[in-house]
């Protein structure tokens, strides 16, 4: 069984958006962690992790989300999740992480929320 994850990043005025699709697990987590290190974040910006295409996420996947949050906080920025799949949303609920990861239906909604908060 091959493990697939596609990763792309784009930049908006609100901050970088990282789009993940496929399986976020033990095998694919290191790639995302490497990508995080190269992500430019300015203080006050918001890092959005778009999870629309995620089909599987295990505990290593959670590690990546927490690493992303640490990365954002270290840059005096914030983090938000977009399009969290139902199963992952349940895991975030069980692990109590829903409190520390604001989540939005889409990346656009996340950007909009950031603008509203910044105004």
């Amino acid at each position: 069984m091959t493990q697939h994850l596609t990763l792309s990043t784009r930049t908006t005025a609100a901050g970088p958006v990282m789009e993940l699709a496929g399986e976020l697990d033990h095998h694919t987590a290191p790639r995302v962690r490497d990508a995080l290190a190269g992500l430019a974040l300015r203080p006050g910006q918001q890092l959005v992790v778009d999870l629309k295409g995620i089909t599987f996420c295990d505990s290593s996947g959670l590690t990546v989300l927490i690493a992303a949050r640490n990365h954002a906080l270290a840059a005096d920025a914030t983090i938000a999740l977009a399009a969290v799949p139902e199963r992952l949303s349940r895991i975030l609920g069980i692990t109590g992480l829903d409190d520390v990861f604001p989540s939005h239906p889409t990346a656009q909604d996340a950007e909009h929320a950031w603008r509203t908060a910044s105004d």
Partner: protein
Amino acid sequence: MCETGEAADSKDQAPVHEEARFSEMLEDSAEDLYEHAPCGYLSTLLDGRIAKVNATLLDWLGYRRGDLVGRMDFSDLLTVGGRLYHETHFAPLLQMQGEISGIALELKAADGSHLPVMVTSTVKTGSDGQPLLIRTTLFDARDRRAYETELLRARQEADQERDRLKLLNTTLQKTLLPPTLANVPGLDVSAHYHIASVDEVGGDFYDLFPLAAGTWGLFLGDVCGKGAAAAAVTSLARYTLRAAAVYNPDPAAVLANLNTVLNHEYQGTDPRFCTVVFGLLTPDPDRGGFRITLASGGHPPALLMRADGTADYLPTPGGQLIGALPNAHIATTTVHLSPGDTLLLHTDGLTEAHTTAAGGDDRYGDDALLDFGRDLAPTTASDTIGAVRDLLDAFGTGVDDDTAVLAIHVPRPLSEEQQ
């Protein structure tokens, strides 16, 4: 024009000249090619007697021509095993097909040493189609044999390394689990650890141990990730939990302590965390049974199967996983365990297991586990663990993560059981 003419002449002459030179360099005699070819040639009569042999093969075997021609059969040159193979396979196939190629055999040299060769034979027929003799070429296969032996050796070594790694992982896994669970008077305890992969150490853990003044501590958790790095966290988590419980047995305080330790130890891009449930067991002399206070750090809820046949999860909402956040919120709940009640703690390897071989979104799930508990209740610790093991066996390879389960049960008094 003149220049062009000269150039044309020289062009015409050159190939002729070159051809002659090549011809000189190349085989001037077919006989020499036969005798000193880089392979052995052998012609035998249909009954196997050697009729002709080239110098290369004589040289390899250390025979003189007179030793072989007319005096020995091809099969006389083979080792015992080779002769058997020649008789049962080689010769019949050659007779049937008229040719046979790429057969690995061993020749016996005059000095008794063995020479691995690749053998190809064809039957030469006369103009009337009748077979006349057998032509055989033999290639020196010593290099090839050495290569094969080397490959085999490397493979055996790799297999041995893999076995050693498996043994190491299994041993390491065992050191992360208590060899036996403490015997708690008035309580039946049973546990099981399911290893999903022997190639990597998993991160599940549990323990049950005495604390001061007739109270008992228990915990069960799941460190994120696999392998040696996760095992190090598992070890740290176990010892921290036991030490913290001695210092202050309040379950929320125990988990807060572990959170501080893990959060300080692992930060930045490689966060390490675990989900864990810690319980403090206190005998309840007034009502019988035990009181248990459970603190959860982002762990799936415990399943309570009661004496009256009902079953429910004991939710601990809002508890956050341990080690990821500086001030993780820890949720607690307290229940009374009456005689006949059974409490099951599990890691999500059980609920995340695939229920079909097809994979995909066919995971067992929390609802199925609750139904499982409702079917079992009322039950005992060992019956619960037995049923979970049967369940895991039924999932087979569908269990792709390690799974730990721990069940505690308050037995009914003997007099009540007899009724």
